[in-house]
């Protein structure tokens, strides 16, 4: 073997090895959950604030059926079609056998119990900011919901995105740690920030994305063209939304705009969730949105 080839091989092994290590799915430390206590009522709030049912409920279910989390909802994207999995309390088809640690790895690290990367159609880049108390509380609430035996539909994702390991690289580039809105905030704005940036994942739609599907942090919640095709996604910053805090809170409660038109499209699903929050929580979300910088 000649010199240059040997060098290339050595270099390639180092880069490849480093890449392999860097793209490994990360997890929480087991002992981190030992001292965490779960509160099922808090779990219910986390469930609605995080909008779990909007994706994981059996498609087109209404009212109580929205708590049957058998999955199956299809999401068509540029990368392929993703199918929401079953997160019901069924021990085989769902996640009934999961521990707090399994759920924390999924929500905070986007890592499955088999230590594989989840696709970011599951908004774990948001949930990464969730407290472990909320993770444990959510699990205790989920365990009260019905078991659904529907098996998961495998994702239909094209090459090379079907190689899950490359998601490790995606996570390195786009995983958010810490808050987007920082600085001197009131207690109410801080509560709103947690609801929006850690649970509500408003930014998953309302922040524009780059070609690799990462959020453009500089345009946080500033809206843009709808990737689904028709229409635009509204700008939620004070530059684009001149509603009062009361108007925003009412919209999140009943779906009525200040003109007494109503939400349409996917926001109807979102309001089904936010209508379950308290007035104080909705007011906190409004206070947070009003505190966003004008871009």
């Amino acid at each position, binding site marked *: 073997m000649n010199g240059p080839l040997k060098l290339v091989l050595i270099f390639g092994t180092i880069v490849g090895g480093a890449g392999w290590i860097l793209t490994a799915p990360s997890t929480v430390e087991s002992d981190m959950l030992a001292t965490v206590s779960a509160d099922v009522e808090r779990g219910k709030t986390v469930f609605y604030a995080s909008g779990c049912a909007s994706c994981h409920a059996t498609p087109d279910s209404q009212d109580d059926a929205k708590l049957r989390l058998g999955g199956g909802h299809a999401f068509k994207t540029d990368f392929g079609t993703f199918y929401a999995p079953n997160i019901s309390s069924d021990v085989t088809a769902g996640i009934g056998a999961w521990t707090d640690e399994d759920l924390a790895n999924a929500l905070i690290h986007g890592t499955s119990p088999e230590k594989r990367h989840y696709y970011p159609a599951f908004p774990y880049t948001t949930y990464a900011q969730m407290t472990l108390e909320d993770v444990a509380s959510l699990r205790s609430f989920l365990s009260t919901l019905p078991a659904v035996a529907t098996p998961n539909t495998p994702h239909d994702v094209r090459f090379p995105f079907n190689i899950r390991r490359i998601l490790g690289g995606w996570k390195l580039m786009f995983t958010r740690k810490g808050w987007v809105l920082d600085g001197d905030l009131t207690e109410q704005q801080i509560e709103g920030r947690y609801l929006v940036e850690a649970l509500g994942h408003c930014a998953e739609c309302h922040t524009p994305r780059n070609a690799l599907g990462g959020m453009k942090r500089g345009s946080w919640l500033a809206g843009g063209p*709808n990737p689904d095709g*028709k*229409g635009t996604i509204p700008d939620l910053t004070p530059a684009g939304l001149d509603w009062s805090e*009361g*108007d925003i*809170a*009412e919209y999140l*409660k*009943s*779906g*009525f705009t200040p*003109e*007494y*038109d*109503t*939400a*349409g*499209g996917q926001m*109807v*699903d979102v*309001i*089904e969730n936010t*209508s379950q929050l308290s007035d104080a929580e909705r007011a906190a979300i409004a206070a947070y949105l009003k505190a966003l910088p004008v871009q």
Partner: protein
Amino acid sequence: MKRVSFVTALGLTATIFLGAATAHETDNPAVTARMAIMQLYANNLGQLGAMAKGNVEYSADAATAAANNLGLLVQLDQSTLWPAGTDTDSISNTRALPEIWQNFPDVMAKGKALSEAVTAMQAAAGTDLASLQGAMGALGGACGACHKAYRAPE
């Protein structure tokens, strides 16, 4: 050869223009009238909403009047206001999706849900502010359910 492709291109262009021309603006009075009914809903909901939000002081009489107007609006016979050919595929100045005409029993079921939410508001509006506020959610949900399924995004 060049000439043929030019003719083909001309034909294609004409087809595209004709295709676009099928969704024309209409001054069909039925379309205007159904939009006007929506405006009347918004106007009365706005009076209730202003009280719910605390922008206007609660008045049992004013709230009851607005709720009763909604009660009249849900009773309007709209059977002549939704003629065939007034959906988003046919005309440009509407957001009414063709699915309305394809799923008529479901549209009626959603209309019934609205009627029930309005009845609940009629009972709540004159009781007290908290009752009024409590009834807004179901009303918004009923409006939104139909808009989600049957109205095109802006």
